[in-house]
C-alpha cells in the first residue's frame, strides 16, 4: 500500500519583478518555505516518497545558493525524493542537476531521474517510470516509452512526467512536450504524476497535475496544493487528497466604479481578504474627489496589511462634483482649468488629464488647509 506525495513546478530561482523588492523577496522566501512544508506534510501523512514532477528549478543557471537551499529544504523528510527534470530544468549535457551534483548538494535520499527509465523503490513498493525532458522542448510524447516498460511484480507502477496532456488543457498551454490523455491506461499505470500545469488538476482517475505548492502568478486556478496519493495495490484506483500548501493567496480584481456604493463595496471586499495576500487591482469608471481620497486612504491601509497591493487607477476618471470644486475654492481661471481637465479625461490622453486634475486638487486642498490653519 504505497503512499506518496505528488508535487511539481516549484520554479525555484524565479524572481518577482512586478513587486517591490521587499515583497518579491518575501515571495521567493515563501517558495523555500513551501518545500519545507512539503517535507513536513510527507512526514505527517507518513508518505513513502515525495515525487516532484518537473520544474524544480525555474532555470538552468540559478545561483549556487539557490541550488543548495532547495536541497537543504528537503531535509525534514528523510524518505526518498524523486525529482524529474522538466522543461525549465531539462537534463541537458550540462544542467542545473549536473551542477547540483558537482556542488555535492544532492542528499543521498534524493533521486534525480535524469535519464528515461525505471527507478525501483522496492522498500517503498514503488516502480517509478520516469520520462525526464532531456531537451528544452520535445514534440514527441516521452511517456510512450512507458507502454513497453516492464516493472517488477508487486511494485506499484507510477509514471512521472512533465508536459501537457493533449486536448484537455486550455489552449494557451503550448503544445510542446505532449502527453497522451490516456497514457495511464495504455502503460498500465497505477498513477501518472504530472507537472507543468500550475494548478492542481485531475485529468482522469489515475492522472493528476499537482500544480505548484506556492502560487506565483495571478492566473492559474487551484495553485497552492500538494497531492497525497495512496495506491492501495497494483491495478486498484488510487485515492488522491489535495492538501493546501499556499502561504500567499493571489487576487487580481478588475472593477468598474460607477456609483459611490461601488467603491464602498470594493473596500469592504478588500477588507475581508486575509493578510497574506497579494492583490492586484485595476479600476475603471469614475470617482469623485472625495471618493478618490477615500480610495487612497484605503489603499494606504491595505499596503500595510497585505504582502502586496497594486492598484492601477489610470482607467479611473476623476469627476469632481460642484461641491468638490466649491470646497476647493477654485475660482477664476483655475476653475476653468479644472473644468478643462475634467472634460479632457474623455479623450485619448485621459490618464494625463486625470493625473493633472489630481495634482491640482491636491494643491488646492493643501492651500485650503493652510488657509484654515
Amino acid at each position, binding site marked *: 500500500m504505497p503512499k506518496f506525495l505528488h508535487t511539481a513546478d516549484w520554479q525555484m530561482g524565479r524572481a518577482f519583478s512586478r513587486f517591490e523588492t521587499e515583497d518579491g523577496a518575501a515571495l521567493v522566501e515563501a517558495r523555500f518555505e513551501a518545500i519545507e512544508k512539503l517535507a513536513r506534510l510527507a512526514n505527517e501523512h507518513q508518505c513513502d516518497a515525495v515525487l516532484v514532477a518537473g520544474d524544480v528549478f525555474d532555470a538552468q543557471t540559478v545561483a549556487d545558493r539557490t541550488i543548495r537551499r532547495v536541497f537543504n529544504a528537503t531535509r525534514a523528510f528523510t524518505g526518498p525524493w524523486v525529482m524529474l527534470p522538466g522543461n525549465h530544468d531539462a537534463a541537458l549535457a550540462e544542467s542545473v542537476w549536473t551542477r547540483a551534483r558537482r556542488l555535492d548538494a544532492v542528499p543521498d535520499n534524493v533521486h534525480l531521474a535524469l535519464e528515461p527509465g525505471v527507478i525501483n523503490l522496492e522498500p517503498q513498493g514503488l516502480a517509478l517510470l520516469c520520462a525526464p525532458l532531456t531537451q528544452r522542448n520535445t514534440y514527441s510524447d516521452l511517456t510512450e516509452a512507458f507502454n513497453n516498460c516492464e516493472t517488477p511484480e508487486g511494485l506499484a507502477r507510477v509514471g512521472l512526467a512533465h508536459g501537457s496532456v493533449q486536448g484537455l488543457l486550455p489552449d494557451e498551454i503550448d503544445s510542446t512536450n505532449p502527453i497522451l490523455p490516456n497514457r495511464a491506461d495504455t502503460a498500465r499505470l497505477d498513477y501518472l504524476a504530472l507537472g507543468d500545469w500550475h494548478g492542481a488538476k485531475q485529468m482522469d482517475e489515475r492522472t493528476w497535475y499537482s500544480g505548484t505548492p506556492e502560487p506565483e502568478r495571478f492566473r492559474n486556478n487551484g495553485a497552492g496544493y500538494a497531492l497525497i496519493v495512496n495506491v492501495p495495490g497494483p491495478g486498484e484506483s488510487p485515492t488522491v487528497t489535495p492538501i493546501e500548501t499556499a502561504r500567499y493567496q493571489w487576487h487580481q480584481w478588475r472593477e468598474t466604479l460607477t456609483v459611490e456604493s461601488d467603491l464602498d463595496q470594493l473596500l469592504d471586499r478588500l477588507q475581508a481578504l486575509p493578510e497574506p495576500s497579494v492583490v492586484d487591482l485595476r479600476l475603471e469608471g469614475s470617482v469623485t474627489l472625495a471618493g478618490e481620497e477615500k480610495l487612497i486612504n484605503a489603499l494606504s491601509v491595505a499596503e500595510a496589511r497585505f504582502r502586496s497591493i497594486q492598484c492601477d487607477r489610470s482607467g479611473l476618471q476623476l469627476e469632481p462634483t460642484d461641491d468638490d470644486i466649491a470646497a476647493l475654492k477654485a475660482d477664476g481661471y483655475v476653475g476653468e482649468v479644472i473644468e478643462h481637465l475634467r472634460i479632457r479625461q474623455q479623450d485619448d490622453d485621459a490618464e494625463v488629464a486625470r493625473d493633472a486634475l489630481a*495634482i491640482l486638487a491636491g494643491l488646492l486642498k493643501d492651500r485650503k488647509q493652510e488657509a484654515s490653519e
Partner: protein
Amino acid sequence: MKLRRLQVEQLRQFRQPFVLDDLQPGLNLIHGPNESGKSTLVRAIRAAFFERYRTSSVDDLRPWGDSAAAPTITLDFDAQQKSWHLVKSFLQRKRCDLKIDSDSYSEDEAEEKLAELLGFQFSAKGVSKPEHWGVPGLLWVEQGTGQNIEQAVEHAGDHLKSALNSLVGEVASTGGDELIEQVKARWSDLFTPTGKPRGDYQKLEKEREEHQQEIDELQARIQKYQEQVDRLGKLTQDYERTQHERPWEEAERQLEQAKERYRQVEKLEQQQAREKETLTHLQNNQQLLRQNQEQLQSLNKKLDVRKTELDKAQRELEQAEARTPSIAGKVQEAKAAYEAAAKQVDQARLQETRSRLEQDIRRLEQHNHTLTQNLDKARQYQQELEQAREQSRQNQINAKAVKALKNTEHQLKEENIRSQTIATRLTWQLEPGVRLALNEELLEGQGERQLLEESSLVVPGVGTLGITPGGEDLASTQRKLSTLGQGLAEQMKTLGVDSVQQAEHRVVAYEAAERTLQHTRELLKSVAPVGIEQLLADQKETQSQLQKAKTELENSPVPEPGQQLQVTDVASAEAGRAQAETRLAEAEAEERKHQTELLTRRQTRDNAKSEWQQLQDEVQNPEHQKQLQKLSKELAEIEDKRARLETTLQAREQEIQQARPAILRQDIERYQRSISTLRQTQEERQRELRDIQVRLEAWGAEGLEEQRNDKVAELEQCNRRYQELDRRARALDLLLILLTEKRQALTRRLQAPLQKHLDHYLSLLFPQATLEVDEHLRPGTFTRGTELGQIAELSFGAREQMGLISRLAYADLLREAGRPTLVILDDTLVHSDTDRLDDMKRILFDAANRHQILLFTCHPEKWSDLGVPPRDIQAMKEQGSANLV
C-alpha cells in the same frame, strides 16, 4: 480728484506761507525760473501724501539753517464727491489732520484714508521710496524721470489690476498665480527650464538604459551558455558514439589489406626488373655476335671494293698515257708558231726602214723642186720690182699740188661761168657767107659770144662796132679770171705738166706703180721671205740630204722576195709573236701537269694493286670460313632465348598493371590519413568536451539566469518608478500649460481697456503705430510701419513721450474705474522737438478734459499755446509777501 489749494510754510525756501490757489479742474501751468520753488511745491505735495507725519527722515523739507522749523503743508481738494482738507506738519510739529466734508481724522487714521484714496503705501520706516508710491508714483512725474515707466507700473500693479478687475468684472482667481508658482516649482523638480528631464526623472531614464544593457549582456551570455550546453550535448553524443564504433579500426584493417596487396605487387615488380636485366644482357650479346659476323662477312665485300678501285686506277692511268702524244704535238706546234712569228718581226722591221728612206728621198726631192721654183719666181719678182720702182720714180708727182691745181682749175671754170652770166651776150645769125670779125676773130653762121671786155666787132662792110660790157663786177671778174689763169699756168709749170689732165694721168700712173711695187714686194716675200740668198742655201742643204738618203737606201738589204706579201707592220708582227709565246707557255704548262698526273695515277694504281693483293690472300684463308659458320649458330641460339624471355616479361607486366600499384599506394595513404583524422577528431572532441565542461562549470556557477531575473526585476522597478515620474511629469506639464494659457487669456481680456486708452493717445502722436501692453500691463512691443521693437530701444525723447501717454492711459483707466486721478508733470518733455511737442500739447489738452493736470515748468514760452494762463511762482511769492505785509 481736484486739487483746489496748496499752502506751504516753513518749508525749504518758503519760510513764509505760500499759497497756490484757484487751481483749475483741467490744465494748470505753473512756471518760475530755477530755484524759484517749483520742485519744492511738487515735493510738498508728495510729502503731504507719502511721508508719515511722524517721520524724522524729512530733513530736506526744513528751511536751511532753521532747526526749529515745522514744515507744514495744507491741501484742499475734492475727491469721491467730497471736500478734503489736509494739514500735515513735520519735524518740530508732527501732525496730520484730515477733514473729509464734516468728518475729521487725524494722525495714522488720516494717513490711512489718504493711502486708500490714492492707492499707495507708507514706508514702514524712514523716507518714502518709489516702491511705496503706487498710483501717484505713476501719475506724478518727477523732473527727468518721465521715460522710466516700468518700475512705476510695477509699483502700481495691484492697484491697476484691481481697477481693471472692477472694470472687466472678472475674477483673476484667488491666488491663481501662487498656484502656478507651485505647479511650476513641482514641474521644475522634473524638468530643466528648457523642458528636458532632470534629477530623478533623468537619472531613471539613464538607469533604465543601463539595466536594459546589463540584461542584454546577461541575455547574450545566457544564449552563449545555452549554445555551449547544446554543443556539449552533441559533442558528448558524438564522442560516445565514436568511442563505441571506433571507426578507425575498420580503416586500419583496410590499410593492412592494401599494404598486403601492395607488397605482392612489389615482389612482381622486382622479378620483372631482374628479368628485364637478363633480357638486356642477351640483347647486348646478340648485338656483339652480329657485329662479328658482319665484320667477317664484310671482308669479301671489301675485296670487291678494292678490285674495283684497282681497275679504276688502271683505267685512269691508261687514259692519261693516251693523252701524252697529243700534248707533245701541241708543244711542237706552239714552238714552230713562235719561231715563225719572230722571223716575221725581223722582216717587218727591215721593211719599215726602207720605206722610211724612200719617203725621205721623195720628200727631199719635192722640197728641192719647190725651192727651185721659188728661186725662179723670186728672180722674176725682183725684176718686176725694179720695173715698178722705175715707173714710180718716173711718175712721181705731188698729189697735193695736183689737187690744188684741180681746185684752181675749178675756180677758174666757175669764174668763167660767172663772167659768162654777167658778160654781154652777143648772138649772131649770119647769112651764109657773111662774116664778121670780133676782136679780130671771124664769126660766121650763127653763134654766140659773151663779152667781158671792150670788144670791137668789125662788120665787114659796115664798120666796127665797139661793145663795152657794163657793170663793176665785170671788171673784178675779169681780174680774178686773169689771176686764176696765171695761177693755173704757174701751177702747171711747177708740176711740169701741160694740162690738168696730164697731171692727173701722172698721179694715176704713180699710184699704180706704187701699188705694183707693193704687190711685187709681197710676192717676193712669199717665195723668199729672208731673201734669195737664204733660199739658195736651203736648196743646197736639201740637195745634200737627198744625196745622203739615196746612198743609205742603196746600202740597205733588200727584203726576201717570197715573204714580202705577209709582212704587214712591226706592231702586229710583235703582237703575233707575243700571242705565240703565250700559247707556247700554255702548251708547256699543260705538258708539265700531264706529267705529274701521270706519275700520281701510276702510284695510285700500284697502291691499289698491292692492297687488293693483300686482301685477296686473306679471304682465301679457310679459318675465316669456319669462324663465320660458328657465329651463325650462336646467333640463332640467342634469338630463341630472347623471344622466350620477352613473352614472360609481357605477361608479368600485364599482371602488375592490373594490380594498379599507384592506386594501391594512394589507398594506403588515404587509409592512413583517415585513421589519423578519425583519431584526431575524437581527441579534439574530447578536448573540446573538457573545455566546454570547464567553461560551463564556471559560467553555471554565476547563476546567469537568476542574475538576469533579478536584473529584470530591477529594471521593472526602475520602469515603474520612471512611469510614475513620467506620468507626474506629463501631468504637471499639462497643468502648467493649461494654467498659463488660461491666465494669459485672462490677462488679455484685462488688458483690453488699457489698450483702448493707450491706442487713443498713440494715434494722436504716431498715427498707424501700435503699442502693446504686456501681461504686467506695461507698455511692451512697439510697432511703427516696419519698425518693431521695445520701448526701451527708442530714443530718449520718444521714450519720454511714450511714458507720458502711457501714464495718461493709466489715468484714464483709473478714472474709468472710479479712482481719483491727479497728474503732476515737473518740467516734462524737455527733450521733445517742436512738432512732437505740439502733438503732446494736443494730447495734454485732451487729457485735461478728464484729469486735473499740474504742469510745472521753467520755460513758460514753450507752453504759451496750451490754452491756459501761466502762473508765475515768483510773482505769487511777491504778491504773497505783499499780502502778508
